[in-house]
């Protein structure tokens, strides 16, 4: 009888802990980031920019990242269209502050720092802003669980994130949907006060090297009524990469 009571006690304790953890929005976001964590990442991205009149423009970039979430460095280099081939963006993420970003334009042989106040700008005609290309470290945000609700058939946690004081952001708050079954972020809505600025939808989620990853990211710009669909190809995680290839000098190397 005592054994049964003890077992029941343990089960109850574990269940309560799990429930408490699950209800802690910071822990949910942290768990989602941890599950997606890798030492490095590489993919080829195809971007379809669909403007308000349904005119489609296609761009392609190659993306490489080294380091853990929130403390990583990445280089994104355009391979198409031809006139922007070689244009590159270096993003150095910091756990305690906004990222540093530099852009390299081969035609003029100069790199340019992307100032914090300019991060709300669209990145090279896409619907992603420069800020959307940086990683969000949990320590720079406050979180609040808003609801548990289904999104496209999957039960999700809907969590509000607000940038902490000192974190420079164009958005006053965001709503993040995290799937309960696998902790994958499936949608982020970014707001300025009550106005929706951008919505990112993560679809075609597949398991790649044991990491659940969205193969399509659709960014909708509510002001312009345009959207950009990023399709990820040849995705690889945990490749051997060198820190020396994620510097301003490395960004200048072509192509």
């Amino acid at each position: 009888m005592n054994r049964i009571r003890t077992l029941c006690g343990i089960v109850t304790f574990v269940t309560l802990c799990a429930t408490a953890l699950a209800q802690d929005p910071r822990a949910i976001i942290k768990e989602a980031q941890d599950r997606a964590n890798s030492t490095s990442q590489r993919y080829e991205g195809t971007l379809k920019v669909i403007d308000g009149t349904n005119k489609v423009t296609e761009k392609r970039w190659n993306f490489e990242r080294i380091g853990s979430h929130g403390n990583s460095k990445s280089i994104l280099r355009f391979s198409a269209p031809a006139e922007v081939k070689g244009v590159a963006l270096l993003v150095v993420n910091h756990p305690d502050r906004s990222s540093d970003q530099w852009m390299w334009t081969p035609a003029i042989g100069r790199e340019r720092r992307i100032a914090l106040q300019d991060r709300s700008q669209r990145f090279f005609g896409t619907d992603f802003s420069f800020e959307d290309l940086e990683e969000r470290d949990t320590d720079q945000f406050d979180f609040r669980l808003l609801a548990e609700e289904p999104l496209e058939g999957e039960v999700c946690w809907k969590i509000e994130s607000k940038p902490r004081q000192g974190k420079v952001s164009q958005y006053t708050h965001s709503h993040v949907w995290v799937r309960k079954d696998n902790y994958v972020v499936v949608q982020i809505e970014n707001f300025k006060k009550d106005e929706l600025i951008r919505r990112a939808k993560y679809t075609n989620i597949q398991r790649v090297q044991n990491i659940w990853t969205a193969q399509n990211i659709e960014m909708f710009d509510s002001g312009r009524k345009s959207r950009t669909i990023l399709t990820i190809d040849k995705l690889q995680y945990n490749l051997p990469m060198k820190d020396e290839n994620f510097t301003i000098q490395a960004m200048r190397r072509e192509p």
Partner: protein
Amino acid sequence: MPILVLLVLLAQNFTQRGFVETQGIAYPQEAINDDTHVIGEVRIRYEGFYKPSGRFQIAGALDLRGDTHEQTERVLRLDWDDRGRQRPMLSLQRLSAQYYRGGLAVEAGKQLVRWGRTDIVNPTDRFAPQDSLTVVDNDFLAIYAVRATYERGSDTIDVVWSPRLTPSRIPLLYQRWFIPPEGAPSFALERDIPDGSQSGIRWSHVGSVEFAAAFYSGFNNLPSFQITPGSPVVRETYPELRMFGGDIGVPLRLVSIKGEAAYFDSPDHTSDNYVLYVIQLERQAGEWFFVGGYGGEAITERGTQAADFNPVRGLTRTILARAGYTIDTNRSVAFETAVRENFDGLWAKAEYSQAFGQHWRLTTGFTLIRGKATDFLGQYNRNSHAVLAVKYSF
């Protein structure tokens, strides 16, 4: 079969790009020394990059050019130097080998070397001669150099050595961008390009504030002119030059401030000693970007030269502004202006650009130049022009 395998292996490490650009330039007014109203130009650029290993890369670029106004030579030969008065028909724009290991990168060969931070005028950009045949629309010329860059943490040291001077290309005599001095008899220009190397070092730091300090020793890539009384020959010389300079970028909450300044010292006293400085503010707002600034000059000692050609100094004591608006993914407009502080010269340019599909871009614009004949900008007051360019990139 082995050749096929070799080709496949080469293809894996080889990338290329380039463009074909044609443009028409229309000048509504005749110039004193040039009655041509319309000029056509074509340019084909091909660039290739071969990376046989993770630490080594070879880069090459060729230009094939032509025009209707003899700004380009009419002789088809490969010009390795690009030091002539006219643009070469076929020229090597880049041929360099790069090796990198850790924070060290070394590039040797023909390459473009750019220094400085500001956007409109760069006093410290000493290794970048320009093609100024059309004074207000200029391109940079590559130089032969060995460049070693060492980056550690937030600091980078950049050392450049160039075995010889590549002079900037200045307007051709008897064409509209050369303004003959009033009442001057006809003369010939005799060029005297010095032997000797150029070297420089730049230390830059990135952080919440970015800054750099630079030193250059060599020659001015822009000419001074020596006149011998009674002689029909004017000597075009490239004086020795030392430059001590620096630049800074400070991102603030509302705007970014960028500044660049340099002191120019002429060891042989043929040209002026002077300070050039530029301060500019920039900001993006919505689909707009704005850059506004002021370029200034302070002469500390006069040189012995009779005259010089220096568009960089010509754009000082000037208020400079640039604005651009992105209409949509494929279309943009840009405006640029320079106004002398005494209003003796004005240069203003408006441009519209539109991309078609993945490869084509059309650009059209108009440049207005007004002012007094005594002013650097104002002297080109008969050279306002319209441009229509079509570019195919691959």
